[in-house]
């Protein structure tokens, strides 16, 4: 901490200051997670939402072949999307961070604008982009590369394209600090020692940002794991991710306890991965 007189408080005032944030954060974020944890052991009843109990049947169902397969698909989709995303984001962010500061700003604005754009809007625009009536296949027809316009959605590739699209700005923004803090003179030193740009990229830049790459991969992985609308709009039911099933159970099938159990599994997986990134971040220092 860089506050000059950082230290233990001398009176109650700081605790008073903390009361309101404490109430809000505990009530609105922490308590709900606890309730959800409790819920995952409750019993489902037809007439109302649920009934207090202590049973493991929700977890038993969550570990059934059906949901295990769904979890497997979710993890696979997230891994593939995160990998492709990183493959694009890494060199792109590197080039971006090498531009003059003032030149970077418009790209950064574009990136955070896309990042903040609703998943609904991105799903919708990609469904247009890949559709028969307004998609890029029309462009290919005009360029005589294709005979007639075709529809490319829904499908695995369509879903993957949109998932990479939505997570690309995140990956870039997470990679951006470590790449722009990477001392430019390191690559310049490599150049004066005879390394071509490609060589210095691989043996100077890459080894120095390996941790950041791993962190970004994990964050993007979690981000895609949480995608909800894109798989529904652009994928087929067999590609649906866990959040789709959780919402489905909670709202349409009125099975809150099962939804809670599935959410707990997702929580453990992502919290574990997040803590891992924290660990990595710390060991990097």
């Amino acid at each position: 901490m860089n506050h000059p007189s950082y230290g233990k408080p001398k009176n109650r005032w700081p605790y008073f200051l903390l009361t309101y944030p404490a109430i809000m954060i505990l009530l609105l974020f922490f308590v709900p997670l606890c309730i959800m944890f409790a819920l995952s052991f409750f019993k489902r009843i037809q007439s109302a939402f649920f009934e207090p109990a202590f049973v493991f049947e929700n977890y038993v169902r969550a570990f059934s072949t059906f949901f295990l397969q769904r979890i497997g698909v979710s993890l696979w989709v997230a891994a593939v999307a995160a990998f492709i995303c990183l493959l694009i984001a890494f060199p792109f962010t590197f080039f971006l961070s090498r531009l003059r500061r003032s030149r970077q700003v418009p790209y950064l604005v574009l990136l955070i604008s896309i990042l903040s754009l609703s998943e609904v809007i991105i799903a919708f625009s990609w469904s247009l982009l890949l559709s028969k009536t307004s998609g890029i296949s029309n462009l290919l027809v005009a360029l005589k590369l294709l005979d007639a316009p075709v529809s490319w959605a829904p499908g695995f590739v369509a879903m993957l394209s949109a998932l990479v699209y939505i997570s690309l700005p995140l990956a870039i923004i997470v990679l951006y600090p470590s790449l722009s803090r990477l001392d430019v003179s390191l690559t310049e030193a490599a150049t004066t020692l005879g390394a071509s740009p490609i060589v210095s990229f691989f043996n100077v830049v890459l080894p120095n940002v390996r941790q950041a790459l791993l962190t970004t991969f994990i964050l993007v992985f979690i981000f895609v794991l949480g995608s909800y609308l894109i798989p529904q709009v652009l994928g087929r039911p067999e590609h649906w991710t866990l959040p789709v099933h959780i919402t489905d159970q909670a709202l349409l099938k009125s099975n809150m306890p099962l939804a809670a159990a599935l959410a707990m599994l997702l929580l453990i997986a992502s919290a574990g991965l997040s803590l891992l990134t924290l660990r990595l971040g710390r060991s990097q220092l």
Partner: protein
Amino acid sequence: MMILKRFFFSLVVLYLVAPLVIITGVSLNAQKRLFFPPQGLSLRWYFEFFSQAEWYLPALRSLSIAGLAALIAMSIALPLAYTVWRYDIKLARMLYFLGLAPFALPPVITALGALALWIVLQSFGKPYTVVLSHAAFLVTLPLATISLGLQSMNAESIEAATTLGADNSTVFRTIVFPYIRPYMMAGFVFAFVLSLNEYIIAFMVAGFTVETLPIKIFNSLRYGYTPVMASVSVIFFLLATLLFGLIGKFGDLPKLLGADSSSD
């Protein structure tokens, strides 16, 4: 090499803007069809958005939810970020960690938790539940930007103020607050824009009673496409670009996003 670099860079930028171009084109169709390139140019779908209650009401709803949620998120983040920075208090650090946590988890978890909470409190479906749950979810953003601002403050300027006779609260009022104000603005804007675009939490806690704009768009996506959806999307994108563009123009966006302040 230079050419290859430019080519790759442009290709990625093209990938990023392609859906935006298509959606803009579609929003300009003269007929109620989703063609690209548009057939006939007109702004009628923009007028439709502003004139039809089924569109502008969700928009107004979303704007008020986003404004309130961002304000509440800020009100939670400011005292917390300040105490964590100023005092060595374990509770503060724990709360800080919890405040950052929602962004490290898939939002469906926060959404389901929120749903469970409001069911238990028997407020399921009430409009204010969306505001509060959004605020708790988005608190991460002002918390992060304000902390960044505090971290980057020069410790000596506070010491200088102290030697000139300012007490804690005067230091906060006259030195700290003016310094972190742009960071607060940035945090507010981030939270506001994200709330405006948030789908799953809003849908879970009050999807059937409070139709926000993203929910409205998704419903139209399911039950009949209309170019209004495209015009709304364009407006949303432009709004985000405008707000972030202002931050970029008047603030130091690269620094805000974590680039080193020392380089040019």
